[in-house]
């Protein structure tokens, strides 16, 4: 009983770690630039495949593979921002959403072209084996995945609280004209938001490759971003962490205790419920109203 609960919890949190990293990229872009990026799941795929190409195809050490994947994802993100989204500034948000949906299809097509649709075997990067925890057998890589996500999300939090560029990015999110009068370059902030989203997609891609495997289904994580960010609030890092963990756990508990495929729809049931009750999410910034 306890052991099943522990097992479900660890697996749920590990999946939640992937959700959180995918959602983090989404939230970064949304918060800074106002763009709702439907291609976030495909960035995760790009991260996973780039890592796979580096480690399996080119036989690089995993650390170099990570660097390569980060470089690919960042360059791709910067190109997308510069070539596709910057020209859309000032267009309606529907038009912008259409662009990101088109981008999503394009990325899927390119990955299919380069790698085909057979699942790829990724060499293990995270430590294998398992440990015994309260009677449950827990794969070590799940625990490491949770730790990696926690560290990355923590670093992002510190970046936004303490660093000059982090504060500048939040300033732009808050009040763009005012940020301009401070000499903050808004185009650079936009570029940085996309680049950081690329980095978080690679870390997410690493976890996906490890825990789920590298295949066309990686992009499906893109859909689950929506329940996660709606739960956590579209623009909050803390929210993506909590949202990722809650959805991850909910899916596992449902699978373990209820079953019958309900786990696949439960995130979207949550999505609808939250939208009905708290449209700005549990952690989204409440509009400050005064004066």
């Amino acid at each position, binding site marked *: 009983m306890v052991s099943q609960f522990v097992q479900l919890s660890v697996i749920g949190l590990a999946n939640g770690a992937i959700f959180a990293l995918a959602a983090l990229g989404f939230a970064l872009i949304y918060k800074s630039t106002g763009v709702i990026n439907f291609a976030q799941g495909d960035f995760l795929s790009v991260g996973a495949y780039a890592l796979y190409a580096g480690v399996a195809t080119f036989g690089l050490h995993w650390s170099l593979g990570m660097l390569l994947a980060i470089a690919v994802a960042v360059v791709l993100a910067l190109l997308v921002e510069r070539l596709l989204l910057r020209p859309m500034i000032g267009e309606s948000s529907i038009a912008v959403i259409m662009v990101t949906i088109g981008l999503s299809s394009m990325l899927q097509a390119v990955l299919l072209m380069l790698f085909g649709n057979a699942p790829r075997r990724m060499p293990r990067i995270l430590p294998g084996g398992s440990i015994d925890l309260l009677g449950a057998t827990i794969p070590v890589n799940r625990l490491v995945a949770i730790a990696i996500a926690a560290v990355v999300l923590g670093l992002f939090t510190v970046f936004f609280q303490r660093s000059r560029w982090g504060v500048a990015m939040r*300033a732009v999110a*808050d*009040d763009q004209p005012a940020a*301009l*009068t*401070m000499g*903050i370059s808004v185009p650079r902030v936009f570029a940085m938001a996309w680049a950081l989203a690329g980095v978080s997609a690679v870390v997410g891609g690493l976890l996906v490759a490890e825990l789920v495997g590298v295949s066309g289904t990686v992009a499906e994580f893109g859909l689950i971003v929506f329940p996660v960010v709606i739960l956590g609030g579209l623009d909050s890092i803390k929210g993506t962490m909590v949202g990722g963990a809650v959805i991850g756990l909910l899916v596992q508990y449902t699978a373990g205790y209820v079953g019958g495929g309900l786990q696949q729809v439960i995130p979207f049931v949550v999505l609808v419920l939250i939208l009905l009750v708290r449209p700005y999410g549990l952690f989204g910034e409440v509009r*400050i109203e005064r004066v």
Partner: protein
Amino acid sequence: MTDSAPTATATTAAGATRDDAGGPGPLLAINNLEVIYDEVILVLRGLSMEVATGQIVALLGSNGAGKSTTMKAITGLLPTEHGETTDGTIHLRDTDITHADPAQIVRAGASLVMEGRHVFEHLTVHENLVAGGFTRPAETDDGIAEVYEYFPALEQRRDQAAGYLSGGEQQMLAIGRALMASPTLLMLDEPSLGLAPMLVEEIFAIIQRLNRDLGTTVLLVEQNARQALDIADQGYIMESGRIVLDGSAAELADNPDVKEFYLGMAEAGRKSYRDVKHYKRRKRWL
């Protein structure tokens, strides 16, 4: 204009404290500026004005005259509102900033406190100031200490979200944040907007102090003409996108038309309604 004597000495003190002050020519020179919004709405129609180094210059005018548009033109913000400068020039010292982008203009030494304060609501007071010092990261800590000297109330609230400050505190934060860029020209767009009279006085006193102690040249946009002229050296009055009157603050405060229309000091019975209408017509085409 009882205050003209102290402000005159303030100007000399300012000239002595700032090394780049007192050079020949004005700090800001706007020549024949024409600004259009949305490609058709002509808002500034040949506006010319100058701001001399070390002075406080008031730019007055009624709603919709184009004061804020002038500020946006100087600071490079027009493109964000589908506006553009179609004619004329803006010089900051010898630098042509007519079509410069906002970051270049801040780095060149001109900072704007926008109308309506525009503090970063979800950032703390401290973070607002860090953002204000974006162009001068090495001086951030010193800058913040200096801002807290001028605005002690802000220091007590340094970790509070700016959105929860009172209106007066937000205005102080907006000014402090602009000071973080260490501007030679500080522009304030209606800093008194929505503040209680006592707070307005406090803000104006601080503006005067900044001008005196730091030698910061000030361009002050106001509807509150009386108080603005009280602390200003020079004044400009604008109507429908151009300057219709200018002169020393004392002269303007003595001008009967200014008294009537901007200082609300109509001498009862002196003018009939017809005269007023006549004046309004004249004023528009001046």
